[in-house]
């Protein structure tokens, strides 16, 4: 792992949360889980996007939680929420209807075309590691207008082809995705502890920004294929003091989702 200049001031997880939060726009409806995506949404809400609506796969719309939920179906999400509906309703009426602007996903592996694996490492029938499976991930990957992927950047997690496509990115490029009958959408941004990556016209991953202290060579060394680099490669702006204060003092003061130092 590359040493980062700012490591004494903020952690890699904090950089990821801030980079994700800055990409959320005011008024967007975000399909969100627990952990880092939850903190990113709440950070954006406190700063530039107070009108973000958070939708949970458990059927909760517009939650107003008094504590950080450990599970996605926590009772604190229900009390004071705007609406609670069935799981079928949340997937059919909200997600499939096209009402979700941004969906957050994590995975064990992501590949060159943004396909995600959260099912098995090794062959499906005799897996080396059996993971949780899709849950709502494939549905979100198919149906959200933009998908944000948050994951650690390691070579085993960034293979040229994932062992199993749980959730499609751009199989066969953007045209290939359309030919499958999927609505426009797909992975928009991959945010890692090393940088931020987008997708080009062909649906291939491109490095668009490196975090402070990280070089493009560091990112390539942790990526399992010859990675495209944007001509105007940027350095991700560091978290501000206010962003760090909000994360540490207000959003996750007890470190439920975040390890304080790495």
């Amino acid at each position: 792992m590359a040493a980062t200049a700012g490591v004494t001031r903020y952690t890699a997880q904090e950089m990821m949360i801030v980079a994700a939060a800055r990409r959320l726009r005011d008024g967007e409806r975000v399909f969100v889980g627990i952990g880092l995506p939850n903190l990113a949404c709440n950070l954006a809400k406190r700063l530039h996007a107070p009108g973000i609506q958070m939708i949970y796969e458990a059927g909760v719309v517009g939650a107003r939680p008094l504590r950080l939920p450990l599970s996605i179906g926590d009772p604190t999400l229900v009390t004071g929420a705007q609406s609670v509906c069935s799981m079928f309703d949340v997937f059919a009426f909200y997600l499939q209807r096209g009402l979700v602007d941004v969906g957050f996903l994590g995975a064990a592996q992501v590949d060159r075309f943004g396909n995600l694996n959260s099912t098995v490492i090794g062959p499906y029938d005799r897996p080396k590691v059996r993971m949780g499976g899709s849950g709502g991930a494939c549905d979100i990957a198919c149906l959200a207008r933009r998908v944000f992927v948050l994951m650690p950047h390691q070579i085993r997690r960034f293979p040229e082809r994932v062992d199993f496509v749980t959730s499609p990115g751009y199989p066969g490029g953007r045209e290939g995705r359309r030919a499958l009958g999927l609505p426009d959408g797909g992975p928009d941004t991959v945010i890692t502890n090393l940088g931020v990556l987008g997708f080009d016209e062909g649906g291939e991953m491109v490095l668009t920004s490196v975090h402070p202290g990280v070089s493009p060579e560091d990112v390539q060394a942790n990526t399992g294929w010859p990675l495209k680099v944007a001509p105007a490669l940027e350095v991700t702006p560091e978290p501000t003091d206010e962003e760090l204060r909000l994360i540490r003092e207000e959003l996750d003061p007890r470190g439920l989702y975040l390890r304080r130092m790495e």
Partner: protein
Amino acid sequence: MSSSKLMSMADAVRSFVRDGDVVYLAGFTHLIPFAAGHEIIRQGRRELTLCRATPDLVYDQMIAAGCARKVVFSWAGNPGVGLLRAFRREVEAGRLEVEEYTHFGMVARLTAAAMGLPFFPLRTNQGSDLPAVNPNLRTVSCPYTGQPLSAVPALPVDVAVVHVQRADPTGNAQVWGIIGEQREAAFSARRVIVSAEEIVDPEVIRADPNRTLIPDFMVHAVVHEPWAAHPSYVQGYYDRDNDFYLAWDDVSRDPAQTRAWLDEWVYGVTGRNEYVSKLGGERLESLRPEPLESPPVNYGIYR
């Protein structure tokens, strides 16, 4: 006027859960019917096809106890914690058959069965490898536009168990908070067991009919079983016991330890009453939320 279906959990499981059944214990994080799961373990049911969007700890325990032949699911993890270790051990050893869907696919399967349709069309699964490993995931064309759509087959269930806040003695069941896939599971099933935190007078049900998720004519057994959802939760009654979910991660790491837990907490008690006493008053009290009542709504009287 139908008659009371009140009975013990032991009688409900004895009468309505059979070896080889397709079983759905409903509830997404909320209202998971652990009491029913434990009774099924105690009565030694075998060769069950266990269906749940999230198998959760209840199926991990039933798998560890040898009840399952197959698991049909969409996300097999310990929510907020990590993996389901008994499930994973059996799958990696090739001893447990799995059939997996996405969350949307799983609830759409129940919805199809609940509506009397053979399948449900969806705009998901395309581009995933799931159809390559599950021949039940197929593609159909829209009869009007020719557009390709994914299809999932109906999931007819032999017996569904739904835990609720309150029910009357004939089985009109009311739920609030996260309603997950409870209604769909009940309507997709041939036999339905309802367990309830409270048994109330039918007039309490009739005072708020919008809250009735399952009407009594769908229900075969009603069990008064407080704390039946522990370590999951019941909105307004008790919190999710997150410490239990965290502790299970250690308990389930080792088969002998898992077995010892089952011996103590499932085989070693006669039913939920004893399990609850064993948990102890302090633990239970720590899980009770401060009350927050919703103001009543006006239905009006029309004569």
